[in-house]
């Protein structure tokens, strides 16, 4: 386990929402997918993933049901709700705004 960038809680949720917007997925799949999509930069530990999933479920952003995997294993699959889709859109635009702001700050700093 290399040193991992700490994910801000809100960021993790955004990533989970994004992942689930592609297709319903179980917990391990979510962490794998985030790992791949971030070109192996981000590693979501189970310690933060499952509490985050529970929080999002409590907020009604996602729901879960038990399904069978391609390997014929029983797993809990998570999927976006309507509220989750809206949240994703909202969070994404907010992320873009703030990350462009951060990039801008960094750029200014770099120009020094």
């Amino acid at each position, binding site marked *: 386990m290399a040193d991992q960038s700490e994910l801000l809680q809100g960021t993790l949720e955004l990533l989970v929402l994004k992942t689930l917007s592609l297709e319903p997925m179980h917990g391990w799949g979510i962490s794998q997918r985030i790992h791949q999509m971030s070109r192996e930069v981000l590693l979501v530990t189970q*310690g933060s993933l499952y509490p985050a999933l529970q929080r999002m479920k409590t907020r009604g952003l996602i729901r879960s049901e038990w399904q069978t995997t391609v390997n014929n294993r029983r797993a809990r699959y998570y999927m976006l709700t309507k509220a989750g889709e809206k949240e994703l859109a909202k969070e994404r635009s907010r992320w873009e705004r703030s990350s462009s702001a951060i990039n801008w700050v960094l750029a200014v700093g770099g120009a020094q």
Partner: protein
Amino acid sequence: MSLLARISEGLRAILLQKREDAERDEELHTHLEMQIAENMRRGMSPDEATRQAKLQFGSVERIREEVREARGVSRLEDLAGDVRYALRALRRNPGFTTVALLTLALGIGANTAMFSIVNGVVLRPLPYAEPERLVRLHQANPKVGELEGRVSYQDLSDYKARARSFEAMAGYANVPTILTGQGDPVEIEFAYVTREFFSLLGVQPLQGRVLLDEDHRTAVPNAVISESLWRTYLSADPRIIGNRILLRGEPYTVAGIMPVRMRYPTPETAVWVPHSLVRPNQFANGMPQRKDRYLQAIGRVTPGTSAEQAQQELTTIAQDLAVTHPESNADWNATTVVPLQTSIVGDVDKALLIVLGVVGFILLIGCANLANLLLARGTARRREIAIRMSIGAGRKRIVRQLLTESIVLALLGGILGLVLSYWGVRAVLALSADTLPRIEDVHVDARVIAFTLALATITGVLFGLIPALRTAATNPQSDLRGGRGTVGTDGQGVRNALVVAEVALAVLLVVGAGLMTRSFLALRNVNAGFDPDRVLTVAMQLNHAGVPEDQTAQYLVRRRQEYVTALRELPGVTSAGAINVFPLANDFAFSMEYKAARPDIDTRVNADTRYVDPGYFRTMGIALLRGDTMPNTWPDGAPVPAFLSQSAAKQLFPNDEPIGQRISVPWGESIVTGVVADVRQIGIAQAPEPAIYFPHFIAPRLLATIVVRTSGNPNALINPVRQAIRSIDPNQPIRSIVPLQTVMAESIAEDRFFTVLFAIFGGLALLLAAVGIYGVLAYTVRQRTQEIGVRIAMGANTLDVVRMVGGAGMKLVAIGIVIGTVGALLLTRVLASQLYGISATDPFAFAGGLAFLALVACVATCVPAYAATRVPPMIALRPD
């Protein structure tokens, strides 16, 4: 998500908890297996794949914990778990649990007991209808300093007719009488009451009816009796309504029975009769006049009116009456209105609240001890905590767990305390020797239980918080490694601060106890103006049943004389005398206004008025300062002789020789024939008021206290005295035969009660503080055993070790004493009103209290210090 949805999710989660947990575990398990499969796919061996997966996965326990936290309902579940865990932890450590429970049960029990009493005496409303609108009203004569005087029937009628802030007013006069015709005659109290008395208080009769308007219009002797009279002396006769009872041989028809909760005007009042039955011959001019202020009065103010507003209005009316009726009301131009509850409870509420504060301090000291115990225990539990943390419990979680433990402990202690307080209340009430008002209202009610539980919870947080925070701040790694590590100075600062705090609190209480004791001793040594040694007092109401009314006066004079003469002739009696109302027993004392019968002196003096026989002053040892002894008879028509107390003489005749002067009295003029020493009639603590004594034959009184001075122990004469009185009149009830010393002791019983309470609680505080000092030092010695061993091995002698350990302890004690003394100087001020003859900063009380405390603290320090010298040097070399 709406609140409702959240709650339903929460509820669902609780209800489906088992399934939820199982599914969660399955999910995590699946996750782990997928990771293992992935690792193997990347070419790891199965063992390596599992190991890596588990390593990456981290603590399942922690994930479970955090998921539950995220579900938002974990708190409730956690609480149940924490409580179970706490109970287990307490069971595992019976020694600690017993000490803690004992401390808590005592501390909380003492608080519950005192609160029950404060609740009953001060907080509970009076058992009458809308009691917050009931007031006591007095007419006042500021000029002579009489602020709580009585009113005349005429003035009361005028107040009632004119005051708009009152819904109702009633007057009453309670007097002693004798119940006859039911076996041995007994003394009881009865009250003349005016028309609105019962409706104003709003108490319904137990049986029959209250007094009605027609009872007040006619002079038919109807009476309402108390439940206790009915049960005690009338054998709870169910047919009593409409039947007769005899008071001094005169028949009264029982109209109704009042329930026990009707305790007005006094708890002893047994019979209420209409005011229309007041005897004309009890007043100088036949019927009562406006100047005859013999009624006490109560009122019900209109909703929203305060006692102050009511007083303002009544005073305006009083000023009017002073103008329209100058002959009787000139100086009675003010009123005093106080809530009825205040008037019944008096100023005892202040003393009770102080004691409640005192027991609160004791609980605080107990808390400091418990906090220290917990700190020490937290150190011992480090490994347990470290294990819990390393398997995933967060710091918050540990703090919550530890706090739950202390609150559970405190609540258990609170329940024990509630049980203990049952005896505590009984013990305190027994100690109070009937000096507290309203003790019949003292019992455990919902408020007491709520108080106890709230107090227990606060106590639990108070003693548990700091230890919990400190224990949770532990570093799992170093604690798991084990071993003694560095010298245990860890937490020493907190422990020391707690010792300083409890010493400071103990200083407050010990100094308070010292002040109360000094004050009580001063009170006992007061010169009351008479010599209380070897005097027996016989209190009674003269029985004149069967004597025709027109002969009653002469009969009473003769009877009293016969009793005095008979007692004087008993062997062992050196002199005897009589007075109508005895000093220090003032239920029926009364005062009047007097003035020199000279145009040039206009000073009016309100003087305590009593009727005595010639033997009274000599028997009591009251010094006759000027003039002659009192004569036994007096020629008809000549001005009646009067004896002035020294202060009355000074006020009435500031510049003249008082003997031979004349003063105005209701029956004309009196001539001053003697001046006697001032006597503290009202109370030992009260400065003597001006008093005037008249010979008993001029106004025969029903009340008589006969005093006899004996050559030996006055108790030896109790039986002979009783027999002598019985042999004259077998129907003569005797209220009490007690030595004068006992009368004096009873008059300061309330002071003794509070002094003893303070002494007990001061002692308890001292004991707890000593235990605290001992505990902390003993703990230090245990922690520094190795160091001490090294020192001894290096040649330190006994004195050095004692100095090292004891010095540290005494330093804490000294700081505590300094802080406590400053606090005491500021705080004992609230005691000032309870103190007699000394100031609230009395240096002797302070010095005595502090010396005693220092001595006890020294002992508590020396024991562990001495124990330290017994440390064998070899211990330094021994491993853990």
